Structures are given as structure tokens and as C-alpha cells.
């Protein structure tokens, strides 16, 4: 428990750093932030109140930097992320609608990729010369290609030309839609159908990392004496593999932190390709409309999501490694 509390401190610092960075990003860009925005904003329909809100958020010149920062912190503390300039709704409302979709998509894809990749990695590491090993370079293909290309590839082959899965959206909408959003069977099936390709993209792109990481850790772990002891003790084969896999899993979990942010950003790009109803589409639309409050809100929320995922990984790690529990 004390180990976790110690880590919690890091997360507080990290969250604070992310908030501060979010404040400074628009101010680090050359020129006046507000003027940059106004110049790029292709909408003339900015109401005076919106302009005022923007001035408050990006420094219209009335306030000093410190005062702006404090105002920003105060707003944030109240869950106020500003107003969307293109949608005229609070950013928090916009994100509240998007976030569940993104978390559902990334979460399920990551869990699937982690489980399947770890399993394949265990087998590949255990049977060094197996067929699985020769598949490794193929797996790297998915890792080396940008998400949006992989996503387009899947969309074109399985979706557009293959016709097996829908090519866009999170569920059927429009006039011909037969499903009604809600917790009902047909709608859930429709959602899963729509999520299949984006989730497959995210899973395929990240699975190679899990496979290779787990395989290499298995090979390293199998050189440990305790695995040889397990074999010498006459334990059933699967128990010996389990001893090695259980230990090899630990570094794999701590590597989670190395990759999760890449996976999340990748899946946001994937959402854009599939026009999925999540944060990705929102940030793309916001970028098109130069809707800075939304963009920055998404930045902040995504960072927090990544930090949350890391915290979760930390908790799992502490639960799995008795040695981590002791370190105070």
C-alpha cells in the first residue's frame, strides 16, 4: 500500500505538469495566442461573450500571466474547460459524450492485444524454434506502419471491398438506421460490429510489441534457475511454463507505461479514419474549425486517461509482485 501511495505522488505531479503544459502550449507558440487563433478562425460569427471567454482563456492582454494561470486553474477545478467555439456548448459536455466511446474502443482493443499478444509471446518464448518465431518479422510490419495507414488498409480491404464490416461511425445512424441507441441487444451488436475494424487496427498495431516483449522476457526468464528447478521438480509442463510466464509478465506490465500513450494517440488517429464517434473525430473536427478550447480540453483529458491507465498498471504490478509491495 505504501508503495502505491508513493506512486500516487508521482501521478499528482504528472497531472499538475500536464495541466500547466496545457496552459503554456498556446502561449509558447510564436505571436499572440489569441491573435493566432482569431486569424485562423474561419468563423465570423464569434459572439462578444465568446470573444470574452477566449480572451480569458488565452490572455487578451488585460491579465498578467500569473493571474491568467490562476483563473485557468480555478476554472479547471470547477470542471470548466471553456466553451467550444464551433459547437457553442461547454467543452466538458462535448467530451462527456465522446470519451466513453474512445475509452471503450481503446480499452477493449488494448485488453485484447495484451492478452493475445502475451499468450503468443509466452508460447513463442517457450518454443524457441517454433513457427511463431518466424512470424515475428511479420508482426513488426503492423508496428512499423503508421496507424492511419493500417486503419485505411483494413477499412478498404475488409470494410469497403470486403463488405464484412461497416467502414465508419460507431453505430448506424440516419434515416435507414434500424437500431435505437440504448442498452438493448440489437444496438450493442451494431456497436460491436462498428467497433470491429477500429479495434482490430489498434490491436494489430500494438500486439507486436506485447508479443516481442513477452517472448524476449520469457527467454530471459527461462534462463533463471527457478524455472529449471520447477522442471527438475517434476512439475507438469504447463506449471513450468506458468512459473516462467508469471515472472516474465512483470516487466511486460511495467512496459505498459512506455507504450500506452502511443496506443491511445494511435487509436485517436484510427477513430479519425473510421469517423468513429469518439475523441478522435472530435479533435479532427475541432482542428478543422480551429476550435481551440475543444482541442486543449481533449489534450488534457487524454493525458489524464493515459495517466489513469498507468496508475491501473501500477496497481496490477504491485498486486502481482510481492517484492514491489515491500519497497516503501
Amino acid at each position, binding site marked *: 500500500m505504501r508503495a502505491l501511495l508513493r506512486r500516487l505522488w508521482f501521478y499528482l505531479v504528472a497531472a499538475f505538469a500536464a495541466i500547466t503544459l496545457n496552459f503554456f502550449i498556446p502561449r509558447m507558440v510564436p505571436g499572440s495566442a489569441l491573435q493566432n487563433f482569431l486569424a485562423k478562425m474561419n468563423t465570423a460569427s464569434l459572439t462578444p461573450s465568446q470573444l470574452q471567454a477566449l480572451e480569458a482563456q488565452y490572455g487578451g492582454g488585460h491579465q498578467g500571466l500569473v493571474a491568467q494561470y490562476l483563473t485557468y486553474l480555478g476554472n479547471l477545478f470547477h470542471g470548466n474547460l471553456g466553451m467550444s467555439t464551433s459547437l457553442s456548448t461547454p467543452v466538458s459536455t462535448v467530451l462527456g459524450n465522446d470519451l466513453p466511446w474512445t475509452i471503450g474502443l481503446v480499452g477493449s482493443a488494448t485488453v485484447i492485444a495484451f492478452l493475445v499478444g502475451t499468450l503468443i509471446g509466452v508460447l513463442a518464448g517457450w518454443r524457441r524454434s517454433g513457427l511463431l518465431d518466424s512470424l515475428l518479422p511479420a508482426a513488426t510490419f503492423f508496428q512499423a506502419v503508421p496507424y492511419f495507414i493500417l486503419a485505411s488498409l483494413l477499412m478498404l480491404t475488409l470494410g469497403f471491398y470486403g463488405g464484412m464490416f461497416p467502414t465508419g461511425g460507431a453505430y448506424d445512424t440516419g434515416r435507414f438506421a434500424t437500431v435505437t441507441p440504448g442498452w438493448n441487444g440489437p444496438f450493442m451488436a451494431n456497436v460491436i460490429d462498428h467497433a470491429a475494424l477500429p479495434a482490430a487496427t489498434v490491436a494489430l498495431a500494438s500486439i507486436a510489441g506485447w508479443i516481442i516483449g513477452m517472448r524476449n522476457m520469457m527467454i530471459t526468464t527461462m534462463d533463471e*534457475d527457478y524455472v529449471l*528447478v520447477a522442471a527438475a521438480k*517434476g512439475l507438469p509442463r504447463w506449471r513450468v511454463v506458468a512459473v516462467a510466464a508469471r515472472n516474465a509478465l512483470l516487466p511486460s506490465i511495467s512496459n505498459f507505461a512506455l507504450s500506452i500513450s502511443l496506443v491511445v494517440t494511435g487509436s485517436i488517429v484510427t477513430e479519425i479514419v473510421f469517423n468513429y464517434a469518439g475523441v478522435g473525430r472530435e479533435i479532427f473536427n475541432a482542428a478543422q474549425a480551429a476550435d481551440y478550447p475543444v482541442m486543449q480540453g481533449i489534450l488534457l483529458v487524454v493525458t489524464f486517461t493515459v495517466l489513469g491507465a498507468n496508475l491501473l498498471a501500477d496497481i496490477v504490478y504491485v498486486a502481482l509482485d510481492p*517484492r514491489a509491495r515491500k519497497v516503501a
Partner: protein
Amino acid sequence: MTQTQTLNPSKATTGREVVLEIRGLDVDYGFGPDAVRAVSGADLTLHRGEVLGLAGESGSGKSTLAYALTRLLRAPGVITGGEVLFHSRPQGADAGPVETVDILAADAKELGRMRWSELAVVFQSAMHALNPVARIDAQLTDVLKAHRRHMSPAERRERAVELLRMVGISADRLRSYPHELSGGMRQRVMIAMSLALEPQVVIMDEPTTALDVVTQREILEELMLLRERLGFAVVFITHDLSLLLELADSIAVMYAGRIVERASAAELFRAPRHPYSLGLKGSFPSLHGERVRMEGIPGAPPSLKSMPSGCAFHPRCKFAVDRCKVDLPPLATPAMDRIDGLPDVSAPTPTQRVSSCWLHDGQQAAPDALALPFPTPVHLPDQVATAPNGDTASGADRVPSSTTVTHPTLGSTS
């Protein structure tokens, strides 16, 4: 558990029945053209209840030999010849039919059954030999679960408690993780684990090298007591010859993958016949303060890839003659020991001593240092102490200890 073994450690009764037989064992690392020979034609005989020491510098092949005979040697180790026979006697039976297992011909299932239940291993570092993420009780009971199907969970737990108590650890440590135990305790757990199924042979690969000298002493003492009580035979691997001289009944000295001398501990201690044994012995202080100059062996052991011709030891041997560079000396009884005046029957000489050295082929007189008579009229000490040796880091800071292991053999002959 029934305890059948007599507590009488007299070699005359326990030393005769063979339990493990190794004939001409060859072990390679790698396969095909890249292969290097790591062990050549090793012959060893382990008698029931006996402690057989395997000594040599690191890289001499002693561990390779020990792991190969259990078929636990890791890739790229390959056994390329020889025989390993395990003469198993059903537990609790003093006499009766002996079942022989050909270990090199056994399949995974057969090995899985007989390993640990009849032939257990204690690894060098308990730190690495215990699964860091499993509790002690789980690691003690899983072996029971695998081999003793009939035991109930409660019985297994009881046995685990019993095992821990046997090595002097209280039952409340059952739920500990390895990292919560001290180094000595971990090695004790490892020993308890090896004895879980009451094996007939335990192979110990430098079991105390990683420990400090006091703990080392304590554990060895306990180990010898347990051995007397349970009657298992031990193959004890170490680079520390002086330790073996105390513990072992017989000793095989290995160099560059070959056994270069095999003799009883007393013989090897009093009168080594191979220059390498002499050098190895000289690397450690004399056991009872004889004024012998401490000298290591000059040079380093050869790499497996570039073995010297002839006797592999000749580049480092101060007695080397021309023949040593050309011909490999056979492992044979030294000429001077071949005379009819064989060692006394009461002396602990289960097998005839052998040495692989041209100096003992009878063609010339062996150098004095290698030709000490045995048995000697000299009084043998029953109290022995070890002192610094320069071999490894772990042994470097050893100091003479007041607690000594009284060796039954040496003790009985004094």
C-alpha cells in the same frame, strides 16, 4: 515417515552398494562443427549414503557433469556418449530388488517421475533458485502435489512444516516470500525442498558459496546431520577443495572437462597424485597449520575451444615432461599405489584411487610432492578449519571458524 537408514556412518556398510553409476560420459556444447567438448569420458561411482566431492576451478566441467547426469543441462549442452545408471531402491526397503534406471535413455515422463523423488538438486544460489513471486509453502507443496497424488492439502501443509522444521525454520515462515528471508534461510528452504520426497541422491552445486562463512558452517553441519539421519548420498560440487576434504568420502578432481584424479578424501588430502590436485590443494591453506607455502596454480584453465594437446594441464604443470605435450595420460592407478600392499581394508577406499598423469606410469620416479605414501603414519586431525582462499569473491573473506564440521571419516581414523 519411516526412517530406515542406520545412523552408523561407517563406510564399511554404507559405502558398498552403488546408487549412481556414470560411465564414459561425454558432454558437448553445441552441435555439429561448432561443438566443443565440455566433459570427456567421465567415470564416477556414487555409493549409497556416500558424499562424493567434485572439485575443480570454474570452467573445469564439474557443474556441466552434474547437470548432464540429471539431464538438466541447458542448451546448447548435448550429451554425446556414455551411460548414467541410477540404481533405485524402493523407499523404506533396506534390502530387496534394486530397480535400475538408464537416465540417458529415459523420456521426459520417466525423468519427471524419478527426478526429485530419487535424485534431487540444490542449486548454487537459492536467491535465484526460488521463485520470487511464490510463497515458500507453495514452492514446497507443489512438488508434493506433483509426485504424491494421494496427499491431501492438509497433509501437504503438514509435510511442509515438517520439512522447514527439519532445516531449522519455524512454521510461520511458510507464508513468506523468498525476498523476505535471509540468504541462509533461503538456502535452507532450498535444502528442505530437495529433501521433500526423501531422495536417495542429492546433487549440491556449490550450495554454500554465496553465503557468509558462519552461515556456511551452520548449514553444512546441519546438512551432514540430515544426511546421517536420512541416509541420502550427496554429490557435492565446489571449487573449495579444503571444504571437500572435510565433507566428502571420496573426491573427483576435474580439469578441462576430464576427471584427472579420483581418490578417497583422506588419500587426496594426504597424498595427492596429480599435479593439479596438488596445486588445487596448495591454493588453500594446509588444514592443520603445516608450514606449506601457499601457492596458487600459475596460469588459467584453457578455453574449451582451444584445448592443449596431450594432457590439458601441461602448460601449467611444473612437472611436465615432453610426453605430456603429446599423449593424453589415461586415468589409471598410479604405479606406486599399484603394489600389492593395497590400502588397509578399514581405510575409506571404496574404489581404487586413480590419477591421470604420466609421472605415475612407472617409467620414472614421480616427484616427491606427488609421491607421498598413503596410508601415512601421521596423526590425522579431527578438527579442521578453512581459511582464506583466493578463488572466488564469495570465498575470499572466509576466516577460520570455531565451529567446525567433524568429519565422520577423518574422525574415525584418527
